[in-house]
């Protein structure tokens, strides 16, 4: 393909990449505010650590293993663009839009980073930092890259994939409902099962230590998500406008229905609920961002907000400690959005979906797309759960993934990082001597 630079599209993708990158520190605050004051730093370090490890891996073999030449529908060739050496702009994933290759690498890097970081919420307060970094490097390679290749890299959930072979349609995942949210959500469940519950789970209160930080995190996530969803168009056009607008309104609807659900069930609409509703709505609209119109977006957001609000209580009933509700928000929200596309997908009103996909049930497309969406979701759930569980079990059995009970009770920040988040009289120290 010949490459003709489009500075407008490139300007938007440079911006969108920065916006998505900001989401991971945003997540660090969303999660960090939710844990107790003795583990906020460790929680944030899991996000920052994921940036470090995944950022490097992405430019070494990650982009290539995702978007390199297809190997059996399963993964891209990691050597095609190893270290990005010799890559030219006509090889850009976004070449058709006139966006240079390295911008495409950058944008995709930010997706890989946040997907890993999302998982950390399920294993808050109790994970060894070193084990987390190792996990991040392995998981991004053997879970994220295959799944991203299947969906976006021409693999087995794409236009020539299994659903088409089955006589169904092409799965729609505009910005990462399967690749990012279902994937991270189910991986979080697997790890939460491997690591076990926090000491005192279900007995001691473990309420957020800093709710303004949670709201800051939600705000930065929302802000960055415009890059995530509208950037997934790879161009600055009307479809990007649709994705942008749906990212606004589905989120508004989800926030309101989450608050309503709380109000009806518990009597009070909480700020944690508002922040969680924002994230739940964003997750749900992600796969559908450009594939549904105004009413579809509102409906998806509204349904996801309420479903996620109900889902976050399940961990107490079933007894798994998904500490910060990665399952309740990302898995449930991701499934909601992915499946509802089967009802609401439409090709009218500045929308877009891949060639071969179809309108949803409510827009005259019958049940084909719905079935396609369900299959894509199930495939990712099964693959990601099994492989993540195996990785977790091996790490647990070898280096150990969990800190000691004493370190957990005394505070993982102090134990793993030698710090407390906030200055306090009670942590007063005296400087004795200078080392170097």
């Amino acid at each position, binding site marked *: 393909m010949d490459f003709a630079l489009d500075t407008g599209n490139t300007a938007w993708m440079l911006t969108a990449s920065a916006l998505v990158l900001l989401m991971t520190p945003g997540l660090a605050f969303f999660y960090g505010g939710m844990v107790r004051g003795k583990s906020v730093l460790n929680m944030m370090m899991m996000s920052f650590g994921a940036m470090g490890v995944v950022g490097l891996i992405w430019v070494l073999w990650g982009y290539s293993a995702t978007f390199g030449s297809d190997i059996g529908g399963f993964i891209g060739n990691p050597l095609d663009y190893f270290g990005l050496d010799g890559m030219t702009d006509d090889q850009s994933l976004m070449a058709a839009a006139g966006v240079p290759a390295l911008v495409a690498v950058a944008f995709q890097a930010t997706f890989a980073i946040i997907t890993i970081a999302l998982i950390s919420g399920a294993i808050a307060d109790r994970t060894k930092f070193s084990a987390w970094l190792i996990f991040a490097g392995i998981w991004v390679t053997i879970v994220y890259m295959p799944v991203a290749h299947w969906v976006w890299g021409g693999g087995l959930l794409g236009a020539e994939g299994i659903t088409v072979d089955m006589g169904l349609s092409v799965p729609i995942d505009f910005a990462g409902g399967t690749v990012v949210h279902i994937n991270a959500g189910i991986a979080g469940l697997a790890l939460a099962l491997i690591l076990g519950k926090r000491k005192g789970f279900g007995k001691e*209160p473990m*309420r957020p230590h800093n709710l303004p930080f949670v709201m800051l995190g939600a705000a930065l996530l929302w802000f960055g998500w415009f890059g995530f969803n509208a950037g997934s168009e790879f161009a600055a056009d009307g479809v990007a406008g649709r994705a942008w607008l749906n990212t606004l309104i589905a989120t508004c609807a989800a926030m309101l229905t989450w608050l309503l659900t709380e109000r009806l069930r518990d009597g*009070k609409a909480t700020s944690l609920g508002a922040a969680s509703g924002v994230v739940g709505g964003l997750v749900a609209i992600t796969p559908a961002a450009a594939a549904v119109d105004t009413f579809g977006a509102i409906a998806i957001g509204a349904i996801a907000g309420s479903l996620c609000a109900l889902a*976050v209580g*399940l961990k107490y009933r079933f007894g798994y400690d998904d500490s910060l*509700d990665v399952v309740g928000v990302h898995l449930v929200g991701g499934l909601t959005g992915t499946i509802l596309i089967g009802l609401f997908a439409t090709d009218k009103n500045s929308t877009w979906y891949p060639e071969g996909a179809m309108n949803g049930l409510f827009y005259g497309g019958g049940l084909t797309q719905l079935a396609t969406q369900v299959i894509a979701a199930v495939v990712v759930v099964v693959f990601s759960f099994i492989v993540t569980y195996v990785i977790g079990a091996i790490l647990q059995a070898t280096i150990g993934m969990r800190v000691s009970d004493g370190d957990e009770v005394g505070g993982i920040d102090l134990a793993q990082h030698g710090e407390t988040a906030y200055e306090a009289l009670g942590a007063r120290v005296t400087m004795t001597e200078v080392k170097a």
Partner: protein
Amino acid sequence: MTKLVTGVIQPHRLDDVKSALEAAGVRGMTVSEASGYGRQRGHTEVYRGAEYTVDLVPKVRIEVLVADEDTATVTAVLIKAAQTGKIGDGKVWVVPVEDVARVRTGEHGVDAL
């Protein structure tokens, strides 16, 4: 000789208690934050799908050093100003003090108040 009158009260009564004590001639006191555990607890709430009972509620501790003969008055004034009549209003207690000193001057006894 002197006594130490300690009151653990509802935080929102602090301003009134301060004023009342000042009106009663008290010229100094020390205030700190505390949490109370008492009959007041029992109120339960649901938060993010789990049920909680509030256990320790915020209180303010007031400590006033007084001359022996003022003890009863100060105690009474403190109680009156802090009272709302609702559960959780707090406690006041009096402890004997063997010596008091003002740090600034080093003087001891009632003059140090």
